[in-house]
């Protein structure tokens, strides 16, 4: 399946965006988010960005006050996922202009739409920033 979920979490452990590519109940999601966030936030800068959890892996990276956590199958290429996270951040940056946590909080839907353009069914389908942003820019112009 590739990517199982994408989470954006702040330093206090509060979830700012949660996109799952397989169905989990609310309780399952909360439990998962709690466990993973605890594991990743406890690590420091000199440690690697990969954590093994249950039967899959988490690839994470911190940008300013936000942690981006991506859960992937064991066969997935971790370095490619790190590049994906970077691409996501750059895309949001281009759209919001120096994106910060507040941007995501108040424009959560836009963030979801951006992610939707990039990933479907857990597979990365679009990696060009302009292609990702053009539908969203069109939508904004229309409204």
């Amino acid at each position: 399946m590739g990517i199982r979920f994408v989470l954006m979490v702040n330093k206090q452990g509060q979830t700012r965006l949660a996109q799952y590519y397989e169905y989990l109940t609310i309780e399952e999601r909360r439990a998962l988010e709690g466990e993973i966030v605890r594991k990743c936030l406890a690590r420091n800068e000199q440690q690697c960005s990969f954590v093994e959890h249950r039967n899959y892996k988490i690839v994470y990276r911190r940008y300013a006050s936000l942690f981006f956590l991506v859960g992937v199958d064991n066969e997935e290429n971790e370095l490619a996922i790190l590049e994906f996270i970077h691409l996501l951040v750059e895309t949001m940056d281009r759209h919001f202009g120096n994106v910060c946590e507040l941007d995501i909080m108040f424009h959560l839907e836009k963030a979801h739409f951006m992610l939707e353009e990039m990933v479907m069914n857990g597979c990365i389908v679009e990696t060009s920033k302009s292609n990702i942003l053009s539908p969203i820019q069109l939508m904004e112009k229309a409204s």
Partner: protein
Amino acid sequence: MESLFQRSLDDLIKGLRLSPPGVEAAFIAKSVDEIRREIKSTDSQTKATALQKLTYLHSLHGVDMSWAAFPAVELSSSAVHSHKRLAFLSASLSFNPNTTDVILLLTHQLRKDFSSSNPHDVSLALCTLSSISTPDLSRDLTPDLFTLLNSSKNFVKKKAIAAILRVFEQYPEAVRVCFKRIVENLESSDMGVLSAAVGLFCELAVKEPRSYLPLAPEFYKILVDSRNNWVLIKVLKIFAKLAPLEPRLAKRIVEPICEHLRRTGAKSLEFECVNTIVTSLSEYEPAVKLAVMKIQEFLLDNDPNLKYLGLQALAIVAAKHSWAVLENKDVVIKSLDDVDVNIKLEALQLVMAMVSEDNVAEICKVLISYALKSDPEFCNEILGSILSTCSRNFYDVIVDFDWYVSLLGEMSRIPHCQKGEEIETQLIDIGMRVKDVRPELVHIARGLLIDPALLGNPFIRKVLSAAAWLSGEYVEFSRNPLELMESLLQPRTCLLPPPIRAVYIQSAFKVLTFCIYSFLSCGDDTSYHSELTDSVLKGDFQESSDTVTIAPISDTDIYDGLITRSSHQPPKCVSTGNGDDSMISHEQISSASLRKQQLTQKSIMDLVNLVETNLGPLAGSHEVEIQERASNVLGMIELIKPRIHSSTDESEGDKIKGEPESF
């Protein structure tokens, strides 16, 4: 009236941010109540805003919104694009394909949107379908998807291909219908479409590689021509699954992959090439050599991510090409010290993979030194790995058991060691299997038993239990049984839990009987050991005192049946006239001569008194096993004392033979 004051999503978010921590839950509950009222409104905007807020609360605060599924479906038919968008997003985030019944109601709407002229409506519908698809939905919408696969707009085509994976999973018939069109798209010039198609086949090939082997030529073309790293990575994954099935394919792809590996500047692609080579193309030496070279670069990089991945890749190579690991031995061992625990664990696994008969001692020495300076968790990881690797296949890798058991003794003394149980098991297991190492085992055991400080350490108790058992079972190898007895009976043994104390007592019993037997039989030069052995060791007293029955030693052994006393040859001080074929080892002779010096009547009586003094109080213990065993020993002492007293007085022949009658 209410809609005039409907709080927007922004208001909700601000309200949440301003709520003090304890109040947040109440604020959310109040908001949900408001939303319940608002969502019933006939005004589209009100309903949309209500749904928007609820979706937010559901996604980030775990609020249940399954009751709002129908309003979401209603809103999805709105003519206002932003409302439709909202509704579909809400559906994607909250509908449960297994339980949300209203999903079926979306069929018609989705179909309508698929045929919309607005590509964004189509895209929206496709995204939603990939999140919430059910078998029914998939079956009903397959024809529409089939049409979309041929769309003139690449944007739509790309999304249709991406969405169809989910449909294939839910409704396998769809594969047959749509397959040809997707294959055609492998030749698309649009990068998005191509990427989606390759991605789709990547997922499919992982599950059933053989079915997609015929497409190898198409994938090969992409492998050679494409300059897009994302696409190349996916194609490599496909080939990793296909190559093992067809050797001719493997031969063809080795060179292009090596070419990519040499030329690319992207670490992710490098890593994928290395992975593909070491998992599926490991018979091609030049490719493997190249891959190992790249792995080395990863290992030496300062970036912990690359180091970690390098170690993982090396572990895969190690299976068939151990030279690769040995070449990088130093880096691997240095990584045992890394700040990152993940890297340490990978390095440890690799080190264990390097272990062979020749280097096991050296490697264990290095590992123990790392264990001593590590935190408790990693220390125990190291010890656990050593224990499991060395004991694999019945200690296949161990040549020098004397060295190994002394290592086990050393490990037990490491402050953080929590592997007492495993060490106990192995010590006893080795003792039973390897006869030659028994003297060394007894020697190690003595070191452990004699130290009063260890009795207070809870982690080492199991090992002490093993040490006590071994000392009793193989007491004939002990150089100083009297000292051994003192260790077994020392006052601090009261700190031990009852089951272990019971082992100590039983061993003391064995040591005592051994000493008494040795004394009585070494008392003169002729050997009449067989009768004495029978009567003393097998507890063959027909008479029993009122309170105590003496149980034969072989039954009270806690490891019943694993080894029986009868197979144990008691050593003889002098072997004249003995027709048995037991061999006397050098150890036995020196032990025997030491014993001859130690075992005077006085020292035996002291021994007996020592036992009586220490075990006397335990005969009344509340712990059943302790009481039983202590009583056994005391009972035997009662019966044997007269014999000891009289052993030096008379000539041996008459008195000792036969059954005791004076009781």
